[in-house]
């Protein structure tokens, strides 16, 4: 097994796999990706709603979210040789109250300021776009260039292509520590004591990144949060838009094969304290989720749920990720704390990580996501 490389990527999720792929694509093929689980993309990368959106995002994220939608997603299936089921059919963010609309309007304004086409529409127009939605919806924000894709396929497609290009992956290799050699991050030590060495390392291990970063004296202010989702049986094609709400009590879409995937919550998630490896769903969420879904799409009441799943989010204190080299630890690049919305931006994040490794300027400016932004604010 290869144990030394130019680049060590800690975390075989979508960001780690995408970074590996873009590195290999540009010729940096001496790369090792270490994945803690036996399966690639076993964390949030396989456990998310598949949204590829710009609307509703923090202004600091918009440039690279837009870059991915404009320049990367449309050709990704072709590029990776796997249909990642990208569907650019718009995002409806639904509101049922005036307060909802106010919030949506604010987010829409943010997006427009950054140049994204997001506008507020009334109930009538909502129904024209999606006739299945509830009459209780009084308005929505509408971003026609948003969409969705299949997160499991996208992650595994990046992985498959990176393998084909010569990247070395090691699964079942949970990293315990990073060690500096002569002032520079150099060694990566796994739970069983195996030492991997690299010139540069990318830490993209979700919430687990926090413990690993601490071993070189870096603390990323993030918490973890458990979220669940429901999957329905295959349904006839109904609509293509990605749906969300002002309340964030519900999001989802119909996947290409016909199943609907909906995020769902029961309201007790804040208290979830299981180990990170425990992704079992709770006894309450499925029912709560179904009620929320039917509240927005009553027509789905007879659709059957075939599966529920859960996963952990790495929630940053300021709700946007940390994507940057760390000055105090030369050789270390952080890519974590995606706060539950890292899937849609993974192509551009992966690309920019590859640029950071070779010291190239990133395609868009993401200096607002630097690690050194965290300061006492009172």
């Amino acid at each position, binding site marked *: 097994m290869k144990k030394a490389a130019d680049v060590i990527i800690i975390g075989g999720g979508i960001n780690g796999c995408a970074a590996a792929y873009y590195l290999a694509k540009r010729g940096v093929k001496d790369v090792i990706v270490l994945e803690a689980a036996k399966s690639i993309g076993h964390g949030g990368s396989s456990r998310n709603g598949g949204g590829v959106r710009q609307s509703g995002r923090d202004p600091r994220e918009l440039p690279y979210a837009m870059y991915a939608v404009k320049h990367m997603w449309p050709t990704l299936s072709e590029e990776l040789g796997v249909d990642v089921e990208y569907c650019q059919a718009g995002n409806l963010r639904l509101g049922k109250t005036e307060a909802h609309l106010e919030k949506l309007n604010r987010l829409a304004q943010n997006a427009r300021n950054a140049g994204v086409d997001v506008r507020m529409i009334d109930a009538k127009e909502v129904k024209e776009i999606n006739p299945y939605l509830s009459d209780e919806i009084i308005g929505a924000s509408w971003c026609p260039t948003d969409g969705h894709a299949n997160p499991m396929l996208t992650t595994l497609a990046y992985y498959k292509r990176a393998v084909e290009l010569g990247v070395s992956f090691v699964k079942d290799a949970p990293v315990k520590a990073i060690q500096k050699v002569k002032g520079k991050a150099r060694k990566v030590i796994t739970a069983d004591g195996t030492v991997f060495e690299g010139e540069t390392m990318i830490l993209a291990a979700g919430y687990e990144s926090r413990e690993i970063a601490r071993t070189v004296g870096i603390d990323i202010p993030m918490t973890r949060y458990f979220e669940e989702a429901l999957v329905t049986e295959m349904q006839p094609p109904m609509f293509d838009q990605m749906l969300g709400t002002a309340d964030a009590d519900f999001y989802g879409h119909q996947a290409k094969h016909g199943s609907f995937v909906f995020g769902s919550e029961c309201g007790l998630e804040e208290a979830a304290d299981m180990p990170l490896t*425990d992704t*079992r*769903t*709770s*006894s309450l969420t*499925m*029912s709560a989720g179904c009620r929320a879904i039917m509240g927005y799409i009553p027509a789905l009441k007879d659709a059957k749920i075939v599966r529920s799943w859960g996963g952990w989010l790495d929630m940053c204190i300021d709700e946007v990720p940390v994507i940057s080299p760390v000055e105090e630890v030369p050789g270390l690049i952080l890519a974590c704390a995606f706060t539950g919305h890292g899937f849609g931006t993974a192509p551009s994040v992966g690309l920019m990580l590859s640029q950071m490794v070779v010291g190239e300027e990133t395609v868009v400016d993401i200096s607002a996501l630097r690690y050194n932004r965290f300061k006492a604010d009172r």
Partner: protein
Amino acid sequence: MKRYDLIVIGAGPAGLSAAIEAAKCGMKPVVFDENAKPGGQLFKQIHKFFGSKEHRAKIRGFKIGDDLLKEAEEYGVEVVLNATVIGLYPEKEVTVKIGDEVKHFKGDAILAATGASENMVTFKGWTKPGVIGAGAAQTMMNLHHVMPGQRVLMLGTGNVGLVVSYQLLQAGCEVAALVDAAPRVGGYGVHASKVSRCGVPFYLSHTIMEAEGDEYVTGVTIAEVDDKFQFIPGTEKHFDVDTICVAVGLSPMSQLLAQAGCKMLDTPGGYIPECDEFGQTSIDGIFAAGDVSSIEEASSAMIEGRIAGVSIAAAAGYLTEEERKEQCGALESALGSLRKGMFAPENRGKILKETEEGIEISTNLLAKGYVAEDEITRYPGFVKKAGVHPVMECTQNIPCNPCQDACPKGCITIGENITSLPVVDVEKDCIGCGMCVASCSGQAIFLIDEEYEEGYASVTMPYEFLPLPEKGDTGTALDRSGKEVCLAEVVSVKSAKAFDHTNLLTIKVPKDMADKARFFQR
């Protein structure tokens, strides 16, 4: 949240037995089952069970089911039907779909007795309508009174394949062949023999090449396989059938336990929870019993269930440790005796050469489904004497002994060891009552009278088909392989309540056919 001291999931033999034992100790268990009827697979089992009295031997499965339900009612066990458990959570909470809503219940103890599901094999055309599980055939014919097909090929010669083949014949279907990729019959020899003598050919070391038909099955081609299970060209055989039944084993349905986070073991017998001797999984208070913890016969599942019920009651303080030990001890010895013999768990996969008595095992039985004429004479149940007497074609050590109690004259002995082959005492006088014939769950006992008439012998056989022949009917006698051997005349048909639907059919055949004729065909 409503809390029970015991929630049992699955009202099959294990689940009901556990709930009954727990209730006997003063607990108030509830049993949830997703089906409209309780009893699990028991109500599809129309054959007589093996074992001894304590295992309810020679009683048909569905009657045991009836009795179990009565017992459950007697002890006040609450059985909720059409109640699908959709989730099992670590805090011993279950979510159950009852009617049109979901309910949550907690139990101080939970017992998963969720049973097993059928394994499958792939072959060309295996998804075509007409390819069904053997369990599906049983469900259709024995529960819903609908024939699964007109002409059926059975894949698999384990007990399920053998028993279901016989049941298909009883339902009026034709069984074209029994096929198994293994070189030996997997199930009890007596089950194989009763199918074989009806004229169903066995093809061992054969498997299905293709299920044919455009919209649904209209035929099947099988072929011989070598010891690496590869088809041998030129050995193809075609059968016109409308149904292919697949009976290639069962797997524990342990998904609920896995969901709850119980430590699971991946064994050759399936994905099972790791359990202690009382059936408790790695999660305190969550138990498993029956097929979900290891695939066995229903008789074992019932005892396992009782052990779990007693253990749960003891853990909850309804029994002292001494009482538990006493009750479990008796149950464990009953379970132990069922796990003896050639088909015992420790003998799985082994090729045995001789019986416990040191008698060479019939190779013909394993290769073709019936004991050859020159082999049968070496077993202690095969005797010759003047006048009517039993001939017992029981050649394997299986845990079963009702025959020795059935004979009012003490002609038959099995002895202390329940798996011993029956011995016929020629000194004792057989009165030809036929109780032994009807008592044999393997339908392996015949009454022979070689001096029935000048030049003729009579052969009395168990007969469980319709229409029942009548005295005076003439037809053909078939030998153990199902081959026609001579003309035969029905001289007596006896039915009695004590026989429990096993009719005693006596035919008259030429004297030299006394050791050959084993079935009657009109």
